[in-house]
């Protein structure tokens, strides 16, 4: 993976030292909370219900084992022994003390990490494919371009005070695992006659006004990526609605202008821009590309007799292989998903000890690298088929062998009202309740792919808009209620879900999910996933099932 050079290192250390001085001034009363708040947000530090929360950037979701062990150590030393992986491929600590933050940032800097660009109105941590560099589907490793964007965006003076936050996703596979069409900019790598390039999508997003972003350019030659991004950001910086926080995201600008007019303005800006001074020299692209060179794979047969025998002997391993193990571009290797969704546990949480154990597994079996997915799971991207059984055993020992990837209990849930100062309702207990109801692995496999996503408020950190079943916590006269939606998708067929009907109280949510699943099982044709059946039969049968009692 990419390693910091001297400039990266000095920059991150400087920023940590700068924040240390800012914290000291805040504690001494030299700056007010109003002055301090934007500074702490620039360093990923929020105030939540019970304590401060520090959101640490995991660029494009790739972690070295050294970094993961450092996070585990921070969890034990400065937090309550665990961390929470988020839908932005980041990690949050929920019990942080302000006085400890400068030291934590120093520790992070020592392993080439920071909490920059995880909050505030800047270009946020770039999302990328958790299977980057491992899947045969991709054109090239999208992290090369994610890293180039990271370097371009960090401390870019023109884009440090945007109208609102700004999120970019890069993927190079036809199967989108980044929710690219729901980002401010989604970049889908394409191979054209002229070489590598990107389809450029602008103006997607979730939150209060969800949009699936339109394509504004079918093919942008990759070498012009930086100048083109600069042109988009300039149009946004110029015309974004700084006067109204609810209308400040680029999606509103794109929707108001229309995709065509927005594209025209970007193209005009791009024509006028000094491209040679903005586009990256080929040597720099190659330098970063070298940082993502494939690890030293062994030459192996495509089939592992040991693995096949182990699966035949162990039904649980076979199930794990069906759901959590995916094809790799290198014969004899596999991509292994680690579910952080054991039924009854908090989605996305991992203890420090679990992080250490995963780091050990990654060192032993996956070239010392771990990935974070936007669905709040982890990935060992390069595991030999011969070693999958050993990885499974290692995961079982730490309670992380749930074979439920993409199944009903693999639920995204934001922290919700258990932690978040902005929440209307709790999300975690709802997720736990649903996952426990469907904890039976056979039932879950029979139901098949079903993406449930839960947010504790309209900010939609839990991606409820794009859940096959979306669940949004709302506050009805002070009590927690949940609005259900159906038919969303964050994948390449991105779609915003439709609201099912009136919100239901907390203790009815799992029943409602159960009823909708019953409808699906009743109506489905062979080979149809939940979302396919929904698309064929529409909302009505689901609605009738959930609200039958009320009629």
């Amino acid at each position: 993976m990419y390693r910091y050079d001297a400039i990266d290192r000095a920059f991150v250390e400087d920023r940590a030292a700068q924040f240390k001085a800012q914290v000291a001034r805040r504690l001494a009363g030299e700056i007010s909370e109003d002055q301090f708040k934007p500074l702490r947000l620039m360093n990923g530090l929020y105030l939540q219900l019970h304590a401060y929360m520090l959101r640490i950037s995991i660029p494009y979701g790739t972690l070295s084992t050294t970094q993961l062990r450092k996070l585990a150590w921070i969890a034990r030393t400065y937090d309550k022994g665990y961390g929470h992986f988020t839908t932005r491929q980041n990690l949050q600590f929920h019990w942080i003390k302000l006085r400890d933050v400068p030291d934590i940032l120093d520790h992070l800097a020592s392993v080439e990490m920071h909490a920059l660009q995880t909050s505030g109105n800047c270009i946020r941590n770039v999302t990328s494919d958790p299977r980057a560099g491992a899947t045969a589907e991709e054109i090239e490793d999208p992290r090369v371009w994610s890293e180039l964007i990271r370097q371009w965006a960090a401390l870019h003076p023109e884009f440090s005070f945007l109208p609102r936050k700004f999120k970019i996703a890069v993927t190079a596979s036809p199967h989108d695992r980044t929710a690219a069409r729901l980002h401010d900019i989604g970049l889908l790598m394409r191979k054209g006659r002229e070489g590598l390039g990107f389809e450029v999508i602008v103006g997607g997003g979730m939150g209060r006004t969800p949009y699936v972003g339109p394509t504004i350019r079918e093919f942008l030659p990759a070498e012009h990526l930086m100048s083109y991004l600069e042109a988009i950001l300039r149009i946004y910086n110029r015309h974004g609605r700084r006067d109204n926080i609810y209308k400040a995201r680029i999606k509103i600008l794109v929707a108001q202008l229309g995709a065509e007019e927005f594209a025209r303005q970007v193209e005009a800006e791009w024509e006028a821009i000094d491209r040679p001074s903005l586009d990256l020299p080929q040597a720099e692209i190659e330098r970063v590309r070298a940082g993502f060179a494939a690890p030293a794979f062994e030459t192996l047969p495509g089939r592992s007799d040991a693995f096949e025998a182990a699966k035949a002997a162990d039904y649980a391993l076979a199930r794990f292989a069906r759901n959590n193990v995916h094809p790799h571009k290198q014969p004899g290797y596999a991509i292994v998903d680690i579910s952080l969704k054991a039924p009854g546990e908090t989605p996305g949480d991992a203890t420090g000890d679990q992080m250490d154990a995963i780091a050990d597994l990654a060192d032993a079996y996956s070239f010392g690298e771990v990935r974070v997915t936007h669905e709040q799971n982890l990935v060992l991207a390069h595991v030999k088929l011969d070693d999958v059984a050993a990885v499974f055993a290692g995961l079982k020992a730490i309670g992380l062998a749930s074979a439920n990837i993409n199944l009903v209990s693999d639920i995204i849930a934001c922290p919700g009202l258990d932690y978040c100062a902005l929440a209307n309702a709790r999300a975690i207990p709802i997720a736990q309740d649903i996952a426990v109801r469907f904890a039976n692995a056979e039932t879950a496999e029979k139901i098949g792919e079903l993406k449930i996503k839960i947010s504790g408020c309209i900010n939609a950190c839990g991606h409820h808009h794009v859940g096959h079943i979306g669940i949004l916590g709302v506050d009805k006269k002070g009590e927690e209620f949940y609005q259900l939606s159906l038919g969303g998708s964050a994948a390449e067929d991105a779609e915003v879900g439709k609201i099912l009907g009136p919100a239901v109280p907390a203790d009815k949510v799992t029943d409602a999910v159960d009823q909708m699943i019953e409808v699906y099982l009743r109506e489905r044709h062979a080979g149809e996933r939940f979302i396919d059946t929904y698309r064929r039969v529409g909302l009505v049968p689901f609605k009738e099932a959930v609200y039958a009692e009320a009629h």
Partner: protein
Amino acid sequence: MKAIVANRLIDGEVVYWNHGAWKTRFGEAELFEADDAAEAAVAQANVPTQVVDCYLIDVAPEADGYAPTAFRERVKATGPQNHPQHGKQAEGGHDIELIKQAHGIARSAGRHNLIKLKK
């Protein structure tokens, strides 16, 4: 009836005002009958080098004590449901039990008007 809640600046701990001092448990909070006395106390309590996010909350009588009326404030006074060993609930005690019961009653009996979010 009202109480004053804040987060302690240096570590974010949830604290309650009581006659010139910050206490860490809701059960130790000073309760104000009169709104103007409460407003005056907030002005005194909100010292920026000590606390952040300092505000008044509504408090209502329960079986044998008091609990915050807003569900959000009950979470703040006790801790997250998914980790019962984290937050103030870890220590247990009468005030915690009372708030937890209050929340059970309010939610399962559907007494919508009992729980109010701070606006």
